């Protein structure tokens, strides 16, 4: 039971990192990253391959974060002159290409067999207590990211970013460099997704294309939306709520013997999808209303 709870809490922490990334690019910057899972998978594979190639684990994580951020910046730049809808399409396509690459470049990614035996940091040192150590490590990173983001979003950068989200022209007239702000926010979001992927890879020590299903993007959108798309603490609570919903519905559905495994899985996905629709319809502000973040001393 403890093992299960530790596993789920670690996973919730990874989801929280993803949701924090989405709050930055979607909530604060108004850019929809429908290819979230692509950046997540990219980070996982990048770190697994870097560390597999002999790099120390922290460098693998940094490399994964940097690579995801750089590609995020590139994706954002491609659609710079266009409506936000185009970014949504491009990111969706990006995730599909990443999936195809993971699946078919067997020489690098192992194809559908994936990569196994990804080392975990300091595992031999902690022994049986290791899962708990990794959970604490994950949540420490979540905390660091959350604190850094809160500071960043309260700073002039955050205000300018929200101005861009509300009205790019007005922000441009006020002398803000719209493009730079958008690219930065999107890259931060993508980078956090990459870091989350790296954490996942070294946590389960095995990754395959099946670990990064398209539906995960919707889970994280629900996490971010449920907590209030613009709020840092909301993203963390939202991620926990989504994890409870995912795991809870597993038990509820398993208790109904009339359904087979495929039906149970589809019910879970249906509940997440309907959840996201309902949250956006009924409580667009989420649990945490967006604070009136005007300039001032607060």
């Amino acid at each position: 039971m403890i093992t299960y709870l530790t596993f789920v809490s670690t996973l919730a922490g990874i989801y929280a990192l993803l949701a924090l990334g989405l709050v930055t690019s979607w909530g604060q910057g108004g850019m929809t990253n429908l290819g979230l899972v692509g950046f997540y998978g990219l980070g996982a594979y990048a770190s697994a391959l870097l560390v597999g190639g002999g790099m120390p684990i922290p460098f693998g994580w940094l490399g994964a974060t940097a690579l995801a951020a750089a590609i995020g910046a590139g994706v954002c730049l491609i659609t710079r002159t266009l409506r936000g809808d185009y970014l949504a399409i491009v990111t969706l396509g990006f995730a599909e290409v990443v999936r195809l690459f993971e699946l078919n470049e067997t020489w690098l990614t192992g194809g559908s067999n994936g990569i196994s035996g990804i080392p975990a940091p300091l595992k031999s040192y902690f022994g049986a207590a290791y899962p708990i150590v990794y959970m604490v490590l994950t949540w420490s990173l979540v905390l660091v990211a959350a604190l850094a983001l809160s500071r960043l979003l309260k700073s002039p950068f955050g205000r300018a970013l929200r101005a861009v989200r509300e009205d790019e022209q007005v922000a441009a007239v006020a002398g803000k460099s719209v493009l730079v702000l958008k690219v930065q926010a999107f890259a931060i979001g993508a980078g956090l997704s990459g870091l989350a992927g790296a954490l996942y890879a070294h946590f389960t020590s095995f990754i395959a294309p099946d670990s990064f299903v398209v539906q995960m993007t919707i889970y994280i959108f629900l996490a971010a939306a449920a907590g209030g798309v613009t709020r840092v603490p909301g993203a963390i609570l939202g991620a926990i709520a989504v994890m409870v919903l995912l795991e809870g519905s597993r038990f509820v559905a398993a208790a109904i013997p009339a359904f087979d495994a495929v039906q149970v899985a589809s019910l879970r996905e249906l509940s997440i999808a309907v959840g996201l629709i309902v949250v956006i319809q009924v409580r667009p502000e989420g649990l945490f209303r967006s604070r009136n973040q005007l300039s001032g001393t607060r």
Partner: protein
Amino acid sequence: MLTVIGQSLVNGLIQGAVIALPALGLTLIFSVLGFINFSVAAQMTVGAYAGWMVNSHLHWPFAATLPVAFLVAGAVGVLTDRLALAPVRARSGGQTSLMVAVVSIALNLAIESALRFSFGNDLESYDVPVTRDFRFAGLLFGPQELLNFGVALVAAAVLATFFTRTRLGKAMRAVADNADLARLKGIVPNRLANLATFIAMGLAGLGGALLVVTTSVDPSVGSRLVLVVFAASVVGGLTSLPGAVLGALLVGVASELSLLVISPVYESATAFLAILLVLLLRPNGLFAGVSAVRR
């Protein structure tokens, strides 16, 4: 070599003509309602299943299944639009169209999950007579593929007639062109929303049925094909109906030709590449001159 390229052209045009139907749907919704409806993917699957049901269970001939695919997907499209998307669309604000897009991708997953719950993950095949390809001018043609091509052409022609000859069609084009001006002339854009959604999703469903008849149906067949549909729309400029058709033909031919040099597993990647190239070089679409509507 020339024959190989010729064969790719033929296959690409046939595939492109069918892809044009969902691409027209996507473009129509974007033009009239102003948002990207990602649930087009699931509606393709809805149409494919609807056709398969009456074809394999009720033993209707293939041609008779196509109106069913259109009507069921159209009806499901309108119903889900009313339930899920319309309440969000009614909000005002700069972020509305992106919010609706996010809800529509959740809707896509909801419909796909509902289909998976009902039909399972098995591959289902249409019950159509197996026919032999025939050779003409050194190129191979499949009778079923040619029939699909014909159906797509007829559907596009009917659509073109509707938009140029009927009052409703003209009103819809007026809304797409400039919603405020259309309102001044007494057209109520919201009243056209249901009709536009019905036609668009019906086209997606029809396209879905045509795309799977020679292969098989499963709950995520639409999601696998959707990137090509998006590529067709984007290449066509996202707001031009003729552009969507030309875009679909171009993407169809390009992806068939690309198979000569890259592995078939990367067919969707060709579509992504087409999107990137168009956005980098001609962001308003390759056919922006063709009755384009700017937004």
